[in-house]
């Protein structure tokens, strides 16, 4: 069981790190005013919220399988498929949790607005300098929210994992799958243990979000 806990934590951490890096430029671009194209891209980035996880998982299974043209560039490196592997799960989780990173970051960047960047430019800060030294610190609440949401959402993921990961111990057998297997095997005591642990985890996550939302503003100098 501890293998599953460790694997789940690893999957959620890797997914969170990748998503923060990927979603930051995307969310920032979406937060600027402008063309209808942004709304189209925003809609695509939000689709995983509405899509059944099994649909997403099915397409990923096809895309990451040995027959997929997307896999062809990896063949020379000895990788024929990412289905039923840890990195396949990471790719699935990144796509599945994308909206949970993009939405809070976009909202945070929009709340900061264009003015602080103009002020920074008037003080000779290049656009990248202004982004790193002004926009990021002012949007930090959005980063906390995004990281917490993505981590928790990845921990709770079931459908996508089942479709593209299966239940290979130490590779793709995460906690939510483990519960399912315990129940399937009528081992209710073990299922209870994990379920109760997840319950406590969920409470801590929500509490942390509320504290971040209320407290962080006051902690700033």
């Amino acid at each position, binding site marked *: 069981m501890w293998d599953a806990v460790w694997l789940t934590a690893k999957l959620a951490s890797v997914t969170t790190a990748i998503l923060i890096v990927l979603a930051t430029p995307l969310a920032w671009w979406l937060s600027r005013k402008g063309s209808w194209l942004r709304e189209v891209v925003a809609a695509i980035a939000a689709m995983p919220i509405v899509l059944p996880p099994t649909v997403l998982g099915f397409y990923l299974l096809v895309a990451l399988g040995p027959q997929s043209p997307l896999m062809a560039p990896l063949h020379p490196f000895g990788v024929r498929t990412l289905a039923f592997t840890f990195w396949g799960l990471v790719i699935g989780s990144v796509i599945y949790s994308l909206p949970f990173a993009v939405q809070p970051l976009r909202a945070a960047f929009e709340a900061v607005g264009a*003015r602080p960047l103009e*002020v920074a430019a008037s*003080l000779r800060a290049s656009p990248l300098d202004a982004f790193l*030294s002004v926009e990021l610190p*002012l949007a930090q609440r959005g980063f906390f929210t995004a990281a917490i949401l993505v981590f928790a959402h990845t921990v709770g993921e079931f459908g996508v994992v089942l479709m593209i990961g299966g239940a290979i111990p130490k590779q793709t057998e995460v906690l939510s799958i483990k519960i399912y297997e315990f129940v399937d095997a009528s081992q209710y005591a073990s299922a209870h243990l994990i379920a109760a642990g997840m319950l406590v985890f969920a409470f801590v996550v929500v509490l942390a979000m509320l504290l971040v939302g209320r407290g962080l503003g006051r902690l700033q*100098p």
Partner: protein
Amino acid sequence: MTGDGLEVSLEGRVGSLALAAAIDIPARGVTALIGPSGCGKTSLLRCIAGFRRLAGRVAFRGEVWQDEARFVPPHRRPIGYVFQEASLFPHLSVRGNLAFALKRADPAAGPPSHGLDELVELLGLAPLLGRGVAQLSGGERQRVAIARAIATQPRLLVMDEPVSSLDPDGKAEVLARLEKVTAALQAPMIYVSHDRAEVTRLADRVLTMAAGQVRSAEPPPQPPRDAAALDALSTEEVRRLALAALKAGLRPD
């Protein structure tokens, strides 16, 4: 065009306003730009600073900031900009805000003529340095913002109604400091206001903007040298002379 001050000739639409500016601002002293709210003063400043682009040309001391071919981005224009509302960075202390600008001052412009100590002295910031931005009054914030703009060692300082959102006490406090700033500063300044009374203490010259239009004042009419020349003037010319004399501070006895 003399080429040693700021030359601006811009034209274009800003929302529903048709903006047209043809001004030539000397390289020294304070030029006030006044006009009613919504007449395009802020938009014009934003074009000069490079936050907005309209068709035309902007050049400063012979250096072209904008023409058909080029557009220098705001962070490469040696302008100090004081915004109308408090624009201090809330994640930094007063000292942090000043350091942000000092750190990025153009090293090519030579050693800073206004270091931290001079700025603190000039704008009376000593008791504020360690404070957070949220703990400042409106007047204190604008004093810090002015110091921060000067900290970039600007070659042109622009101020967009820096006191119009302040209460009377804050206004007096900032204006008193501004008089010291204008005395100490080498760089020319453009000071935008909708209040003519406010600028009389500060400005060396006044440009008036209305409905998006502004152009540099024509040179004042030359008074005639003798009675015969005066007799030859039309009523309209005499009226203009009398008006210019009144504006220059002469009072009819």
